[in-house]
């Protein structure tokens, strides 16, 4: 059987059992609404455009934060790979920060930037920069020494050697770094919005929760999940596959 067919059957079964259980055990909608209620709420949110506004607001922050993080991660990654001193000092701090979920910075961010977009973008940047930095650094360090030697015999050195050999050779790592940065940014964004201010998907989720509207809460959760999967599948995984194939690294 095709994996797609298996998947469709699985999800139909999942929703049927969910619907059946809510009906049979007469579960209160404030504990667990039926899937039909969730879909109705999702439909309502889109038809009165509230969810559309939330999506636009969330994506705006995401793009700003992710763009800053990718540029910053690239620069920091290059710095750590090229300077031993930077790697031994700043590098250790970045590795240490990696184990801290970026959302714990929110109280400080709110004090610094106020309860506004800047604070959330700061959380997104922190979440995504670190993983991008680490991947770019690894990519540059892992450039085969033979490539560098070969280029040197062809009179490439200095910045030209770096831009024509080191950078392209480390692109597969950078692409993986971008994919992970997106995933980290998306999670950080939701956490940030949930705890700060709107508009945005995370904020609307908390708003619905405050009013006990669990259908809307689950509807937004589904939306967060779907966007996460779709962007990863349709964009990042495709780009990654293409790059790995072109670089001859794909295991076909």
């Amino acid at each position, binding site marked *: 059987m095709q994996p797609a067919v298996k998947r469709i059957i699985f999800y139909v079964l999942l929703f049927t059992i969910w619907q059946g259980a809510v009906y049979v055990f007469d579960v209160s909608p404030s504990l667990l609404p039926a899937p039909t209620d969730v879909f109705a709420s999702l439909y309502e949110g889109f038809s009165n455009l509230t969810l559309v506004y939330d999506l636009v607001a969330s994506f705006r922050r995401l793009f700003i934060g992710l763009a800053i993080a990718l540029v910053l991660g690239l620069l920091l990654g290059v710095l750590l790979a090229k300077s031993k001193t930077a790697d031994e000092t700043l590098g250790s701090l970045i590795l240490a920060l990696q184990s801290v979920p970026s959302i714990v910075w929110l109280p400080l961010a709110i004090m610094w930037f106020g309860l506004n977009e800047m604070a959330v973008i700061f959380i997104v940047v922190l979440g995504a920069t670190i993983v991008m930095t680490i991947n770019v650094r690894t990519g540059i360090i892992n450039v085969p020494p033979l490539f560098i030697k070969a280029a040197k*015999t*062809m009179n490439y050195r200095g910045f030209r050697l770096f831009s024509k050999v080191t950078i392209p050779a480390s692109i597969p790592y950078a692409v993986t770094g971008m994919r992970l940065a997106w995933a980290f940014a998306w999670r950080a964004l939701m956490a940030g919005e949930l705890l700060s201010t709107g508009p945005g998907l995370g904020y609307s989720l908390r708003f619905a929760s405050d009013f006990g509207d669990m259908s809307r809460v689950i509807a937004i959760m589904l939306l967060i999940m779907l966007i996460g999967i779709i962007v990863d599948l349709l964009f990042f995984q495709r780009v990654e596959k293409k790059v790995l194939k*072109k670089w001859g690294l794909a295991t076909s």
Partner: protein
Amino acid sequence: MFLSINNLHKSFTNNGKTELVLSDIQLDVNEGEFVSILGPSGCGKSTLLSIVAGLTNATDGSIELSGKTIKGPGKERGMVFQQAALFPWLSVEENVMFPLLPEMSKKEAQQKAHQYLQMVQLSAYTKHSPHEISGGMQQRVAIARALAMDPALLLMDEPFGALDEQTRSRLHEIVEKIFLETKKTILFVTHSIAESLKLSDRIVVMGTQPGTILDVIELDFPRPRSQSKEELLYYEEKIQALLKSEIDKVTEKEQKNAASR
């Protein structure tokens, strides 16, 4: 003298222990000559080539090419490594254009790349990615790339060591043809006696621990060498005798090391 290597010494320091890898290497190469450097593994022959390429520094001594002392890599010396070292993000043609692009327009570089790809019989594969072609073909691209710079000296570091027998013998023909057509000076590192007898005007036989030149053998036979198989047999035996004592030396040292442990 075209290329002269004078009193070259090279030692590496490893964990505080200094080991002499090359000792007093003295070698002159004429323009248009095909010289093989033959020796057992560990004799420093690849290190010697790397020093000529300017990728490694000598501890002592100097190398002069056309009267100029070698300091660092340069375009007048093209290098072919044991692995093709092609850049995977570039096509075959772009790889050959790589050394040309800083000085030339794209169109000129492309024309030149095609010319050298034709020389290694790969005209049909210009748009392919390196990983889409076989190891032997990759090595031919690497040769075309080195030739495209039009170097005065072509350095080859066991270029066919990783290839199967049939591919290797086909590449020997290509290299010999290129050598006769372009009249390049070639310095060729190998551990295969047959390979060196087939291709070289002179064979530099190296011994190990430390790396020294044991003997230089002149081969004044017409090409292709398949015509003079019997005469070459004498040299093959001579080289084998030379190398046998070297290999015995290595084995003896290994046994001594094992016993002292």
